[in-house]
């Protein structure tokens, strides 16, 4: 079979990359996954739980691994610096100076988290008890030591940090933080039963029936308070507790709240540092300033302006884990179709 010799390189060994690899192997292609970290699994592997069902992140990744085929080759500690299109094939360059041949390339580079220190008024990096959503996931999953010694009694979860914000340079909604905020509120309550959680949001975007149900659960079972208002000032009192200032925009009144822990729901950003070139010419569409744009958002949602180069997962824009899986599988179909026709 010709298929076995056809090499596909997947750049990024996160959820999307692994899921795509798993299915491409089912189609009898030779697949290489390039991962820059020590282990594959991406952000998801550190996640305490994934909404809506609450599966652990590492568990989900393991599920994919269990079905892995010997044909999947995962190269870790490999940072790809450049994807170079030649006539009908690609050269994929790594930071170690190696060059790999591929007939099709799938970009599943995912996202990077917004650097919360840039919103300095929210005190990240200044007050130890201000943590990001990513850190909270690790803390709740016992992968990281929490900065607090005593169980927190009051927690504020601030949505939209680095999303929908011209000042942060990100004019889009990061999509997952609304749900993740609700989920985190529930988990804080589960882990610290005496804890009272306040969610500060701009809009709560609960698209999906099970999402709404989770929101309801947070309200009724865990007594999570939802306050519509953007927090933009944070200071510490003399005991080191954090004082938030906000407007309760539904009441039109000023609001002050003193809490032990502040969680910043950080948004998603495109990664930088990957160069895509077509016959020596660098393509501006891949400069990392914005999420990668496919040919269109409908029936060519995985193709790029460069035939043979495909997109999958959150490198196209913020996506939840469930959407990433669906998207990665769909990408597999498109790649297969392309290689069959060539």
């Amino acid at each position, binding site marked *: 079979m010709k298929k076995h010799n056809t090499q596909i390189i997947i750049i990024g060994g996160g959820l999307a990359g692994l899921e795509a690899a798993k299915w491409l192997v089912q189609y009898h292609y030779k697949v290489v996954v390039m991962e820059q970290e020590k282990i594959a699994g991406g952000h998801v592997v550190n996640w305490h739980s994934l909404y809506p069902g609450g599966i652990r992140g590492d568990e989900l990744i393991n599920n994919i691994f269990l079905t892995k085929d010997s044909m999947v080759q995962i190269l870790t500690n490999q940072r790809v610096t450049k994807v170079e299109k030649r006539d009908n094939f690609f050269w994929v360059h790594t930071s170690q100076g190696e060059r790999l041949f591929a007939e099709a390339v799938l970009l599943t580079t995912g996202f990077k988290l917004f650097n919360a220190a*840039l919103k*300095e*008024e929210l*005190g990240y*990096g*200044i*007050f130890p008890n201000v943590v990001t959503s990513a850190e909270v996931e690790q803390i709740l999953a016992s992968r990281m030591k929490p900065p*607090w*010694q*005593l*169980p*927190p*009694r*009051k927690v504020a979860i601030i949505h939209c940090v680095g999303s929908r914000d*011209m*000042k942060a*340079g990100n004019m889009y909604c990061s999509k997952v933080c609304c749900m993740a905020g609700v989920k985190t509120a529930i988990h804080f309550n589960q882990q610290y039963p005496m804890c009272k959680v306040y969610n500060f949001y701009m809009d709560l975007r609960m698209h999906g029936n099970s999402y709404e149900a989770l929101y309801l659960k947070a309200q009724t079972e865990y007594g999570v308070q939802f306050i519509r208002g953007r927090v*933009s*000032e*944070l*200071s*510490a009192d*003399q*005991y*080191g*507790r954090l004082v938030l200032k906000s407007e309760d925009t539904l009441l039109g009144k000023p609001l002050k709240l*003193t*809490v*032990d822990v502040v969680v910043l729901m950080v948004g998603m950003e495109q990664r930088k540092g990957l160069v895509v070139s077509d016959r020596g010419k660098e393509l501006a569409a891949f400069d990392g300033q914005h999420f990668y744009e496919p040919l269109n958002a409908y029936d060519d949602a995985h193709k790029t302006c460069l035939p043979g180069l495909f997109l999958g997962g959150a490198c196209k824009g913020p996506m939840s884990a469930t959407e990433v899986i669906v998207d990665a599988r769909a990408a597999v179909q498109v790649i297969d179709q392309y290689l069959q026709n060539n």
Partner: protein
Amino acid sequence: MQFDWFVIPFVVGLVFLIGQLGRIYVPWFIKLSREEKEMIRRHWWSRRTLGAVKEIIQECLLHRRIFRINPPLGFMHLSFALGWFLLIITGKLEALFYTHDALNPLWYPLFFKYFEPGRHAFFGESVFIQLMDFWLLVILGGQSIAVVKRLWPGKVGAKKKVQHAVYNRVALMSLWAIFPLRLLAESVTVSYYGGGGFLTGTLGTLLAEVPGIERSQPVLWWAYSIALGCFFVAMPFSRYMHIPTEVLLILFRRWGIKNNLVAHTMSEVELLSCSACGMCLEVCPLNEQELVASQPVYFLERLRMGWTKPSDLWKCLNCGRCEAVCPVLVKANTIRLKEKQKVLPAITPAEGERVKIPAIGQGRLLLYSGCMGKLVPSVRQAMDVVLRHAGLDYQWLDDRGNICCGRPLLLSGQVDRGMAVLKQLENTIREIGPDILVTTCPICYNMINKYAALPFTEVLHHTEFLAGLIHDNRLKVEAHKEKLVFHDPCELGRQSGIYEQPREILRCIGRLVEPQDNKAMSRCCGGALSGLMVDMSEKVALSEATRNSLLSSGAQKIITACPLCRKTLGRQANVPVLDVAEELIRHLSLSNQETAKEKSPPERAFIS
């Protein structure tokens, strides 16, 4: 009586000019406040007047300040001013020596060559003739630079060309016509009667070859007189009003009259003293980006004609770079602020006092971070660390609520309301009664320092305070090898004159490097409080230019001392942008760590 009809345009123009000067200047003297009049009375017969005369010679004739910034332009101004001045004086003397009568008609020295052609062998005649030609040559030399500057500004080191309004061009054209016409008229007369100097004589000899040249003589003298007349008529309405007004300005200034928010006359005097030289155009950060034409040269020009636009008033960063280079030292920002005030309807301060800030006990040392300080909690945190390290007891004024210093209101043009807010803050500070008030915001510092009456409190900016602590050895610091560059905030540097204290601190903790534009010429970060109409893309462009300028010094970190600068510069920076205090805490030496521990606040406790 020497007379010819062609002197009429000149005389009419001159009389008109004198009448206009009277119309403009007399109300100024009337509108001087009582204190200002008293000041003039006290100082006019004193050494200050002598100083003024010296300055008038240096600035109005020699144009020393322009010379220092741009020698070719300085020469241009010098040759016009000094050349013309000496031409008038020499001409007057020449006529005096010839007639032995000081009361010759007004126009007589000007058209001397016409009335007394040829040689007359009076005492010193040949010296006068050569001297007059020399001065004319000086003026023509300056004029050629002026022409070059108009056509190719880059050739004389001017980056931007001033786009003058129509009436100014009329005045300019008549000014440019005066001296070539004089040269021609004199030369033609000389060609017929002889008796010219090295310039008119030579040209006259050449022109004598042209057949029928003598018939053009009356035409040229008429043209010369008309050019003079035109210039005098245009002058009161054009930028050339600076010629007489600058003399008055220097006198007033030496006599102690200041241009401030209440001064009436002085603003007008400064307004008309602007020569529209365009120095401000070169340094305005908004102009570097080609964003807007609100620089003093344009703003004042429009103001003279009553054509100010909103962008003139609110699209300005109030950074003060223009004031720093102005050869006439016009306080454009003050004038601008007053104009804002005039445009806004009389806004009376709202009824009722602001909520009283609960007293926070007596304290010798009071800290104030201001509104902006709340947006950069790290600066406050750093100050806490430093002051604990130094073992000082202190309190934060803004612990119980947020009070504004009123400067933003003032800068927006609502001066009275701004002052009312300041009064409120002043009362609060007085109630607490600290010995020292330290602000971490140069905007508040500038406002409190300038306008608040706090006789028993020393107001310091935190860089001054920290520099003092280091100097007194109450704060021990260690130097690292990092290259640090200091960004002078406009409100701290140019407007409050604090340049050295922050640099002293940086010298103690690292290697201080300087960018090309520093201290008085430092650039605005782009976020200036007064830039009400400057939009985001412009701010981003400004802060990028500033950041690049700072980093051209090879610095690894940008240090500043203003929460607003820190926030604006830091937004998209690829190097750390920190406050002086934030950088300082990385360099505190461990030797007095013990005391720091003792003073640290109680252990973190959670809400129960």
